[in-house]
């Protein structure tokens, strides 16, 4: 009886070993499945590492593309470009990888490379047109030439950006200065800083009025003191109106650029997603 009990204990202790897994977890197929799983879980950097491990054992264009995509998704654009560039010219994935490569170059602001890109790829041509909107080169005067690569549903947005870039609703510095000189605060109102304008008018007006009443009451020192303060606010307001125009115009540029960025992100930079996640 005692021996049987010992035997049961020994069996209990070693039962784990008897059920050990015999499947090779590190087989190429399993690693590929695991890497795909990581990619689909948006764990892109780990997915790239896993794909690279498989790549050491078996070279394939799909792996190069998937590594490039993983790096692209994780924002490592330089590494992504390298792997997109490794896809061979005779591969079925070549066209897609080239487009993804130029998307990376566009995101890296390497507009000169995008300019030299193959124009028979429609997305590259569109990206080049957007690089001129982002200030890489002068906008083409011919609107039709600019809009040519865009499809019907994209034309409206592209034209809107083109028009906003060509005719930005800038304010004029001289107008603001003249307005501020004529009526203190009017320059700020011109740049849509309404309350700033009202307060500038009140400050200058109040100081001028106090100075005027002081001079009338023969308080020379106080009169000059408040006259000095009125000039201080008056001069500052003219200067501030010019600065305000510059900030307003910088805001116009910023708004256009951020609108373009959102549009391009929404359109995935005209390069369709390579979907392999179910």
């Amino acid at each position: 009886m005692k021996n049987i009990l010992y035997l049961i204990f020994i069996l209990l202790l070693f039962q784990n070993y008897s059920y050990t897994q015999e499947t090779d977890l590190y087989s190429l197929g399993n690693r590929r499945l695991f890497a795909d799983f990581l990619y689909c879980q948006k764990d892109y950097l780990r997915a790239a590492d896993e794909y690279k491990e498989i790549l050491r054992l078996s070279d394939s264009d799909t792996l190069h593309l998937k590594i490039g995509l993983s790096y692209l998704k994780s924002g490592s654009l330089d590494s992504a470009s390298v792997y997109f560039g490794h896809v061979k010219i005779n591969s079925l994935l070549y066209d897609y990888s080239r487009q993804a490569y130029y998307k990376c170059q566009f995101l890296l602001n390497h507009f000169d490379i995008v300019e030299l890109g193959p124009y028979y790829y429609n997305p590259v041509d569109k990206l080049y047109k957007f690089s001129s909107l982002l200030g890489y080169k002068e906008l083409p005067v011919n609107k039709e030439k600019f809009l040519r690569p865009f499809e019907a549903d994209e034309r409206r947005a592209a034209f809107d950006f083109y028009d906003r870039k060509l005719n930005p609703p800038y304010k004029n510095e001289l107008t603001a200065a003249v307005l501020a000189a004529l009526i203190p605060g009017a320059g700020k109102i011109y740049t849509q800083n309404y309350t700033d304008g009202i307060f500038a008018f009140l400050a200058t007006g109040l100081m001028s009025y106090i100075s005027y009443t002081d001079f009338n009451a023969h308080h020379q020192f106080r009169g000059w003191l408040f006259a000095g303060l009125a000039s201080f606010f008056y001069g500052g307001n003219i200067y501030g109106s010019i600065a305000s125009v510059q900030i307003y115009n910088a805001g116009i540029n910023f708004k256009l650029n951020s609108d373009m960025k959102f549009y391009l992100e929404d359109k995935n930079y005209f390069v369709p997603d390579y979907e392999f996640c179910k």
Partner: protein
Amino acid sequence: MIKTAAIILFSTLSIYAQTEWVKWGKADYSYEIKQSNSHRQYSISGNTAGETALKTLAVGYWFFISDVDGDNCPFSPTCSSFFLQSVKETNIVQGTLMFADRFTRDMDFIDRFSHYPIAKNRHFYDPPSLYTLNNLKIKYIPAGEYVDK
């Protein structure tokens, strides 16, 4: 039999024992609010006589008015620091005009949120670089956005 069971029991305990051997202790936290004027340099020495005079004026203001009054300027940098930085970045005339403009904007207590980004200290971020009339120096930040400054 009992011995074997005891050995298994103890070994099981050791498997689930704590692996972190660093003793936990009280964290050394400080809840003291940092003084807003801690970055101020109260030295009045400047590179030029004009700079020294201006610095004396600003330090006098800090020492006798601002520090006593408390952290009341809604802007970052504060108006006095803005003045010093403006003069340093441009010249005395332009710096004074920049300060006059800032002083006027400081009066506007109604519509600040729709004009300025928010600095780390929760004040309105308004650096002199925006007002030097040099377009290249303008780094536009939309109003209401938080800035790590």
